[in-house]
């Protein structure tokens, strides 16, 4: 223990971990996943499911790995017959009342009960012809359904609401095999972070109404991304099926959002699938917008910029644009007197009380800090006024922008309504949304985080950073842009 670490052996593999580490965590270092249900690193230890029973030398009985702290020289064995038999028996007990719902259950394919039964359960049940316990499905609140028949009473949901959300709105009701997760009729599960119970549920007992019967887990492609719902910068996974985003789930990041995301962010994805996209570059010819190819469109833009060199430019941007695009939206105006501004939609802050520095932030935009760091300000009204007399105005992904200018208006965006003020633009260029590109955001704490592409952009749309990079290259700003 020279360096303050505890040395132990798990399934023959030596590991060294800090004092106070739980055996179940230490096992991960040995490459051993001890099967478990009620344990979750983001929740207080319960020790109730009994699934993680392991053999520890010198201990007279099997011990639960989730509640046993490592000691120097400990020898842990997870694959001995007593340990495996004990775990197999837990699975058998869990299955006697668990309905054979896999064909109709959302959790199938990402179900921890399926996984461990397949890995170490029995192929048959001995329960025979006894009836299984039955309770009807309950609607817990805005997005959460509870299917009591499938519940294995791991109590992760109860502990999340009590200890992490600090609002004990779920309970365990009744006793013995009559127990179920209950809720009081006067309180719904409408806490801003309640949706996490669906992720935490190891089986298909707590379900998202939004995701109900939408897709099968094995049909989903999973892509790492960053939530665009606010400036917290929670790490998420975008689940897509056939190139449509169907679900958002949290991605663990101990520094930012731990294991959770709020309901606002969770539901903030349908817009990524909008069909009414700008699909081709549009340039104004003879007073009308005409669809064209990128070569012509980029040429046009480059020409506009060359022609207005040395004069004033205003960039009105979305605080949801990538830092790469925002940097280039300034770079292309090198030599101009440049003003850049953004405005963020504001909402009510909703902290996750049990975790410091984690909340749905009032600023409902992912990259306001990134924009600020690049020189954009929040003085939007002034920028709008300055735009009037500016030579070039660039609007980046703000379809409701009401800017009027005597100069040239360039619009880069994903959508643009038929009556939108920016339809007056000289050039309209289609760009990818957050799900269709790679990029980075800077969250409110100054953390730069990367997001990846989950699906292809529609039509001829390209990432805004690519578009502006091409422009920069065309007007000789390529070196600096790189």
């Amino acid at each position, binding site marked *: 223990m020279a360096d303050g670490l505890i040395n132990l052996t798990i399934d023959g593999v030596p590991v060294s971990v800090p004092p106070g580490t739980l055996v179940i965590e230490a096992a991960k270092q040995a490459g051993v996943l001890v099967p478990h249900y009620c344990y979750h690193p983001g929740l207080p230890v319960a020790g109730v499911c*009994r699934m993680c029973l392991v053999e520890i030398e010198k201990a007279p009985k099997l011990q*639960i790995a989730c509640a046993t702290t490592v000691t120097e020289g400990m020898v842990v064995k997870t694959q001995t017959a007593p340990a495996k038999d004990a775990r197999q028996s837990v699975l058998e007990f869990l299955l006697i009342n668990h309905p054979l719902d896999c064909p109709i259950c959302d959790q199938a394919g990402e179900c921890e009960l399926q996984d461990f039964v397949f890995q170490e359960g029995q192929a048959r049940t001995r329960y025979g012809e006894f009836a299984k316990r039955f309770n009807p499905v309950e609607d817990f609140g805005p997005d959460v359904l509870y299917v009591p028949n499938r519940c294995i009473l791991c109590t992760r949901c109860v502990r999340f609401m009590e200890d992490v959300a600090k609002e004990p709105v779920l309970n365990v009701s009744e*006793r013995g095999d009559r127990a179920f997760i209950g809720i009081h009729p006067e309180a719904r599960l409408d806490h801003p972070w309640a949706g996490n119970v669906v992720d935490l549920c190891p089986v298909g007992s707590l379900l998202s109404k939004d995701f109900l019967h939408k897709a099968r887990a094995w049909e989903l492609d999973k892509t790492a991304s960053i939530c665009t719902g606010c400036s917290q910068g929670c790490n998420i996974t975008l689940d897509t099926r056939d190139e449509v985003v169907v679900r958002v789930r949290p991605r663990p990041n101990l520094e930012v959002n731990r294991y959770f995301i709020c309901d606002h962010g969770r539901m903030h994805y349908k817009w990524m699938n909008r069909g009414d996209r700008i699909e081709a570059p549009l340039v104004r010819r003879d007073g009308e917008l005409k669809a064209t190819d990128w070569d012509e469109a980029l040429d046009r833009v480059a020409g506009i910029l060359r022609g207005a060199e040395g004069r004033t430019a205003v960039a009105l941007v979305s605080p949801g644009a990538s830092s790469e695009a925002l940097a280039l939206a300034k770079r292309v105006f090198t030599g101009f007197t440049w003003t850049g501004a953004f405005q963020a939609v504001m909402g009510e802050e909703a902290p996750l009380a049990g975790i410091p520095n984690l909340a749905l932030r009032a600023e409902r935009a992912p990259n306001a800090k990134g924009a600020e760091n690049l020189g954009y300000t929040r003085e939007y009204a002034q920028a709008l006024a300055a735009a009037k007399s500016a030579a070039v105005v660039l609007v980046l992904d703000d379809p409701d922008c009401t800017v009027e200018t005597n100069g040239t208006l360039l619009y880069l965006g994903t959508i643009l309504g038929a009556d939108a003020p920016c339809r007056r633009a000289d050039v309209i260029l289609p760009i990818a949304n957050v799900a269709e590109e790679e990029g980075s955001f800077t969250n409110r704490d100054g953390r730069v985080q990367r997001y990846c592409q989950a699906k292809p952009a529609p039509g001829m749309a390209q990432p805004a950073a690519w578009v502006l990079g091409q422009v920069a290259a065309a007007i000789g700003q390529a070196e600096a842009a790189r």
Partner: protein
Amino acid sequence: MGFPHKSHPKETVVLSQYFGDAEARTYKGWVKRGGYEALTQALKMDPAAVTDVVKESGLRGRGGAGFPTGLKWSFMPKEKKKPHYLCVNADESEPGTFKDREIMRWTPHALLEGTAIAAHAIRAEIAYIYIRGEFTEPWTIMEHALAEANAAGVFGGIKIYLHRGAGAYICGEETALMNSIEGKRGNPRIKPPFPAAAGLFGMPTTINNVETLAAVPHIITRGAAWYKGLCLSNPKSTGTKLFSVCGHVQRPGNYEVTLGFPLKDLLYDMCGGPPAGRTLKACIPGGSSVPILTREETEATLLDYEGVVAQGSMLGSGGVIVFDDSADMVYQIMRLARFYAHESCAQCTQCREGTAWTTKIMERILAGQGKTKDLDLLLDLSENMTGKTICVLSDSCAAPIVSGIKKFRGEFEAYLAGKRQPVMVG
């Protein structure tokens, strides 16, 4: 005394001396009978000295576990940094056991005195007496006695409160009892932490049974050597114990004998044995959670902790349930399994599902629909339910099943073979 019967000469009357004596319930009556002298004496002693006396006496927990009481008290922190608590376990719900209620309803002050002495020994400022909700008469009597004793100011600075349970056997488990006092569901806690380190409200706590504490004043006034001398067999089992004898005996009741006493004498001499014309078939010596003994084993048992273990069971709470040859062992084991299924708190998978499943299998056997492999299944499930859970309720459900199938297999097989009329509807 063999309350409600007259004292039997073979009893060693210590705790039960005043059972049936209404005046002993009053403060004045109790003082007249020598009450509160022990407390006065103990309050003058150093807490550690009180613990030493109890340690020396060999007193062991009378709730069921038989853990040495003085040793348990010594687990409390030596340095007093936080509030200490004493919890008195008056949740008596182990089938076959009915001794603590007699102590409370006849000698409430004995319990209060023992509580105060124990609180002093472990330096607890507050003691909660957790009385099961169904004990309405003991509750009223304890309330009255507590008010009298408080008015007389006998407890020094120690505060004793009564806390009423609300119908849960599992709250007799010491960590579940603490959770129940804290206003929570009566769920047992995982250990560590142990109560002496972090118990009630997270503070150092000791939990003792009613009968254990009722013995403490006697040990103080008559001395550890006296208590240690009360021993008929193994020197590790000292003192007297109230045995609650019930079921198929002519004179059921609480009988106080010195540890090491022959069970045979208790059942036949003192309780009159089974009703006329019947023979003893089985006996559960320590409350329903311990293995069932056959007649031979019963008649060979010496009633102390080691003696009962030698016969393959446990002294437990001392609740002696007697079955004569008219008893349907299969039905009674089913009824016990059903008890555990009702009382399971639902935390641990094996207990929550296993208690109900084993009950269902037993019911099916009694309905004439059992299969031969059901016995092996019951034994296998029992093994899966043993030694793998937070508390031992799961193990307790398995005990009668395993010992029942082992020792009364013929009765099971009679149902399985259709030789016995089904007594339940399938």
